[in-house]
């Protein structure tokens, strides 16, 4: 085995094992920062030894045993916790657990809870959004700092710093390594789902070409979502989020044109959708809806996405149902952007006049001021009502407001066409 073969093999093992390793260690040392350091030390040891010795038969157990030894060494050097009297007992306890002879069995017993505790810790609200994203990708996704930096177009040093600071914040705030109790669970889970969806969107909003690495970010988010769905199978919103991401990902191939231009949903060639992902998305949505309860925002968004996914052709889209779902979503989120989407759906379902009435109500909404999609949607509805002069003004306004070059071209073009 050449050194670079070995390194690639180690990368692969790391991708599979690191989250479980960090989670298992964090349960023992009760500090994810220390757990991650120990796991990293085990990785360094693997990088030193495996090119010579070959990859061991049970690489996960090897890494765990090595990390635990490092932990014991650290405790002996008294680095791991500050020496306070009340901590001595705890330290001994940790030392005992680290010395447990059968690491493999010990991980398996707790692994589900440990992984879940890790998710809740890396997405803890004490951290900034950016920190949560970085730490989650690093500790749960098994990404290197370099990969995270590339994905978010940030300097590697910045991301590294962000992770170091996050670990410190978690330690200082004494965030317990645990699954939150039922009183807190809802809010904390929302925080986790938010981060996963944010990672997905960061990948999904990028177009092909110069950003080829970004589809990988969608895959990372999907992987995290799928893991979560197995960890908390009784939470409908987890399945809702997975459904939403699977269905959105099913369109990746169809939503970018040959020269990198975005193709809108209704213009996409549906034969290019990935129907395996559509199927997985619809199955996840069934799971979410089958669990009952009031549907949350992800389940509702997934249900809307599913309406499009089920339509073989744009004209088969069930717009009245979409408008209804946006209505429920708007009540839940109180978001004017959702209302704007509802206006589009109303226009498609019941005619442009219906849509326009809602859009006109939204004009005075302060949070939509400067939002280019408001005049864009309004222009579209006006054009359908043959009010071309007003429509042109709206498209011109929208073109002036958007920050995206491609979109500006599109909107200016629409304005120009109406002038003729």
């Amino acid at each position: 085995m050449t050194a670079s073969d070995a390194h690639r093999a180690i990368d692969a093992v790391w991708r599979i094992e690191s989250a479980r390793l960090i989670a298992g260690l964090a349960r023992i040392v009760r500090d994810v920062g220390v757990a991650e350091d120990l796991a990293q030390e085990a990785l360094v040891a693997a990088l030193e030894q495996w090119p010579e010795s070959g990859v061991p038969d049970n690489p996960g157990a090897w890494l765990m045993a090595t990390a635990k030894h490092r932990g014991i060494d650290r405790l002996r050097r008294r680095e791991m916790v500050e020496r306070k009297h009340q901590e001595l007992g705890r330290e001994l306890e940790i030392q005992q657990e680290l010395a447990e002879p059968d690491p493999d069995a010990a991980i398996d017993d707790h692994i589900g809870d440990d992984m879940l505790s890790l998710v809740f810790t890396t997405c803890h609200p004490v951290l900034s959004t950016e920190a949560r994203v970085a730490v989650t990708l690093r500790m749960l996704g098994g990404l290197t700092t370099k990969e995270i930096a590339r994905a978010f177009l940030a300097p590697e040093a910045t991301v590294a710093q962000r992770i170091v600071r996050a670990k410190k914040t978690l330690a200082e705030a004494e965030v317990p390594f645990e699954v939150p109790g039922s009183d807190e669970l809802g809010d904390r889970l929302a925080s986790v789902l938010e981060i996963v969806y944010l990672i997905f969107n960061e990948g999904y909003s990028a177009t092909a070409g110069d950003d080829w690495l970004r589809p990988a970010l969608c895959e990372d988010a999907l992987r995290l979502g799928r893991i979560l769905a197995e960890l908390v199978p009784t939470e409908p919103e987890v399945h809702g989020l997975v459904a939403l991401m699977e269905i959105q990902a099913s369109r990746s191939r169809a939503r970018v044109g040959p020269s990198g231009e975005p193709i809108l949903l209704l213009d996409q060639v549906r034969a290019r959708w990935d129907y395996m992902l559509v199927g997985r998305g619809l199955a996840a949505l069934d799971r979410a809806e089958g669990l009952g309860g009031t549907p949350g925002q992800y389940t509702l968004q997934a249900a809307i996405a599913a309406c499009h996914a089920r339509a073989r052709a744009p004209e088969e889209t069930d717009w009245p149902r979409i408008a209804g779902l946006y209505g429920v979503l708007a009540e839940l989120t109180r978001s004017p952007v959702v209302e704007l989407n509802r206006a589009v759906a109303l226009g498609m379902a019941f005619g442009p006049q219906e849509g326009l009435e809602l859009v006109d109500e939204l004009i005075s909404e302060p949070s939509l001021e400067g939002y280019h999609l408001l005049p864009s949607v309004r222009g579209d509805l006006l054009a359908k009502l043959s009010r071309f002069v007003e429509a042109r003004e709206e498209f011109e306004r929208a073109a002036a407001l958007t920050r995206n070059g491609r979109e500006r071209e599109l909107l200016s073009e629409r304005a120009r066409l109406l002038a003729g």
Partner: protein
Amino acid sequence: MRFMLMVKASEDSEKGIMPTEAELGEMGQYNEEMVKAGVMLAGEGLQPSSKGARVKFSGSDRTVTDGPFTETKELVAGYWLIQVKSREEAIEWVKRCPNPHAGESEIEIRQVFEAEDFGEELTPELREQEERIRAQADDNQ
């Protein structure tokens, strides 16, 4: 990136001999592990080739041959579709698979083409195809 993992057939699988309960259990556990890790997208076992058929193409001719087929070791007896970070990760997962047959088995690992694998030179055709499909869709309206 996605990989298809193909389990090659064995004499037993071609005879339609089902795996034992213990073997099924082990395989089930392995599948569960891949699902929990968020990597498994799909996977199925295939019936013996005696229940299958082949369609041979020669120019515009089509010839149908019924199974079974003789080259057992080249036949596919089952597959998984997984989404992982690298070819090495796919290999690592396959190494963790319980031996699918008693005795000798082989699992072949093949990478699935993704949208970004299609280089620039394919765009004119793709565009043409798209336009054709679009025109068809318009006709159907």
